[in-house]
């Protein structure tokens, strides 16, 4: 494909796509030229597909057919970010936002909104998009989206990821063309260095520097470009959303890197748990090859580059760069010591660069808009934006992209809509099993790589799990340790045995069997695991313990000294109690108790024998009078 052909596609589709970028009047003007009066975008990402968006799409198509509405276009996109409200449906040019759709709702929307001269169906709209006076806000103006700055997620929820022309209409592969025709490989690397982009996968290593280390002897040795799409941190799903919503941005960025370091082969290592992402990547690679945007002599230059997909098989450690490469080589995914770094000796023993999906997603725009543009966003040492996956005890769960330096309070309270059910915010966990907890007193710290480390957590890949007063921090630390014990590859002793012993101490604490000496042992062990493990998995494994022990020491002490779990989570420390004032003697609890720990006569207050009680909570769930409490 030549640049003229690429531009031709871009021009043909441009207006159709711009309708989705503009709202109201401007969008309506453009829509008139496109032949489509309305465009209905339905999320086909993992979240909404789980909520049934496939049925919504077929119901809509059937209904439009039935009504003969040929000037309404149905587009299956990637993730919009508000996964908890799926299936999500957006109607352009107005940008109205329907949430939690059912096939019946679709019929209503067709009847009242999509017909000629129709009006939005207010009661089906996303509640935050309808103001008290009845004004309907477009998607981009709602509280969830307004504070966001979408760079990496630019095209997610805008284009149909299975149609390459839609990506091209929004400038896909233009940056690659610019690199190949206007820039030398060294200039490309310099732009990356100047932009200040740091790896979005965890450690935050400067991307440009990584490329520079791998750039010597271009054309003399085989080199590889790898994409880390083995997003294993539980609670993080931005990489999955990018792959599902805008796969071409990753392919283009990898080709740019191939040009910069002198490589003709890329590998994408993606989790097998992400079937939709795998499918979209396969489609995208096939389409790019067909257009000659991957393969031999791209844009008629002497640069050739192709990409192969490799699937992981469920090993968390394979997100570590050396383990990932060993896995692509078809071996047990065990890490190896560095140096030599992958830039010198990586995949199949050849110089290799590896970046994660979100990092790649920033790169074409940095080339197009320049390093200064990117460096103008963010804080002094962390440039650009970061995508966070908001989850846990928060009203708006989903994906948000904000400028670096945004405070946690803005993310949790303004974008995330706060903690549900009037509960108090207790902590936010970032960085997954390698990260730590941020307590309420640090809510106003501007988030960037360095600040998070300073307050005892880390950026990690961007999972952000909110916890409220009902979550026990010792239990959370135990949860993460259980994860690392399971996922430790077993190669080095500090991690294999150390994490197991650390987990056992936490089990003792939550069972109420630990002594103060155990807490000292725990601290000692954390330090040793950190210093002696081979790879980042082990080195960071104690972080959840260290940070919760630092911020919530009183909770640990309550478990150890008072044998109490203040949040009422750790079963062994719970005591159930029947309030004799409230108990009506209905016998329901006694009849349902699996160990017959409850006694009492009909119509008289019952009593729980705590020596027999196993703390299962069945009585609490069954009591109709709210007479049972745990304490």
């Amino acid at each position, binding site marked *: 494909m030549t640049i003229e052909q690429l531009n031709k596609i871009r021009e043909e589709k441009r207006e159709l796509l711009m309708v989705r970028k503009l709202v109201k009047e401007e969008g309506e003007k453009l829509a008139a030229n496109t032949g489509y009066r309305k465009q209905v975008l339905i999320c086909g990402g993992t979240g909404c597909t789980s909520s049934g968006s496939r049925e919504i799409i077929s119901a809509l198509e059937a209904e439009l057919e039935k009504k003969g509405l040929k000037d309404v276009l149905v587009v299956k996109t990637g993730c919009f970010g508000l996964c908890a409200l799926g299936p999500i449906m957006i109607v352009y040019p107005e940008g109205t936002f329907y949430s939690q759709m059912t096939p019946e709702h679709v019929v209503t929307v067709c009847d009242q909104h999509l017909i000629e001269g129709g009006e939005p169906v207010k009661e089906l709209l996303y509640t935050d998009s309808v103001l008290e006076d009845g004004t309907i806000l477009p998607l981009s103006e709602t509280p969830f989206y307004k504070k966001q700055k979408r760079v990496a997620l630019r095209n997610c929820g805008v284009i149909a990821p299975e149609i390459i022309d839609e990506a091209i209409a929004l400038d896909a592969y233009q940056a690659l063309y610019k690199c190949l025709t206007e820039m030398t490989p060294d200039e490309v690397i310099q732009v990356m260095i100047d932009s200040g982009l740091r790896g979005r996968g965890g450690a935050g290593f400067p991307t440009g520097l990584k490329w520079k280390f791998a750039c010597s002897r271009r054309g003399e040795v085989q080199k590889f470009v790898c994409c880390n799409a083995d*997003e294993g*941190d539980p609670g993080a799903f931005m990489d999955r959303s990018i792959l599902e919503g805008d796969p071409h941005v990753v392919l283009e960025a990898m080709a740019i890197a191939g040009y910069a370091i002198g490589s003709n082969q890329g590998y994408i290592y993606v989790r097998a748990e992400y079937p939709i992402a795998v499918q979209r990547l396969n489609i995208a690679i096939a389409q790019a090859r067909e257009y000659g945007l991957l393969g031999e002599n791209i844009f008629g230059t002497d640069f050739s580059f192709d990409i192969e997909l490799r699937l992981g098989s469920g090993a968390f450690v394979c997100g570590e760069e050396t383990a990932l490469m060993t896995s692509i080589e*078809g071996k047990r995914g065990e890490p190896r010591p560095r140096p030599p770094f992958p830039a010198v000796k990586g995949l199949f023993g050849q110089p290799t660069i590896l970046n994660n999906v979100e990092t790649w997603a920033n790169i074409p725009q940095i080339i197009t808009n320049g390093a200064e543009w990117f460096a103008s966003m963010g804080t002094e040492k962390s440039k650009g934006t970061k995508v966070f996956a908001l*989850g846990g*005890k928060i009203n708006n769960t989903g994906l948000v992209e904000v400028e670096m330096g945004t405070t946690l309070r803005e993310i949790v309270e303004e974008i995330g809509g706060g903690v549900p059910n009037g509960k108090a915010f207790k902590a936010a966990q970032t960085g997954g099993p390698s990260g730590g907890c941020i307590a309420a007193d640090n809510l106003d710290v501007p988030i960037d790589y360095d600040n998070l480390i300073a307050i005892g957590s880390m950026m990690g890949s961007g999972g952000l799990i909110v916890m409220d007063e009902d979550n026990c921090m010792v239990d959370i630390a135990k949860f993460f340790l259980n994860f690392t014990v399971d996922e430790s590859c077993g190669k080095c002793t500090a991690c294999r045995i150390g994490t197991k012993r650390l987990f056992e101490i936490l089990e003792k604490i939550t069972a109420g069997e630990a002594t103060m000496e155990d807490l000292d042992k725990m601290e000692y062990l954390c330090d040793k695991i950190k210093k002696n493990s081979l790879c980042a998995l082990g080195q960071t494994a104690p972080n959840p313990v260290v940070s919760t022990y630092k911020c919530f020491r009183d909770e640990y002490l309550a478990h150890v000294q008072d044998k109490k779990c203040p949040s009422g989570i750790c079963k062994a420390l719970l005591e159930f109690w029947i309030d004799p004032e409230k108990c009506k003697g209905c016998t329901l609890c006694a009849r349902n108790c699996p160990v017959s720990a409850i006694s009492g006569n009909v119509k008289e207050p019952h009593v729980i024998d705590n020596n027999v009680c196993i703390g299962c909570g069945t009585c609490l769930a069954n009591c109709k009078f709210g007479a049972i409490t745990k304490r």
Partner: protein
Amino acid sequence: MAKAKTTVKFQGTLEQEQALREVIEAHKDQPGALMPVLQAAQGIYGYLPVEVQEMIASGLQISVAEVYGVVTFYSQFSLNPKGRYNVSVCLGTACYVKGSEKILEAVESKLGIPSGGCTEDTKFSIDVTRCLGACGLAPVMTVNDDVYGKVEPKKVAEIIDSYMNR
């Protein structure tokens, strides 16, 4: 993670063997062929018994020990057959915080088998997964390819019952 060998007798068919040989043939000259071959083999047989590992080892001309080493390293490779309906409960962070452990308990008590097990009639099996990336819908469980979001412990029996008579 320790993996127990299966006690179920191997019942591979000739068609399956033929399909596996084709996969091996297609990948054998590619660098790092073992993983894609194992993934395809698991797709064909549903699991990776020793008999299948031996065929792969001889096809790729590597030792059975090497194949076994890789199979036992990755949690998605299974030495045990799965039930006709595999119930999988997500224990990722977002789901855990929202109480998915109670969901798992409910599934286990409903089916009377522990996580990792398979019912005697091979109809149901249970496993635990780490984050399906559907954190917005936590807690999440899946039955084969059907995803159930925002599950409550008391809904579990109803969901499983709906597969009982299929």
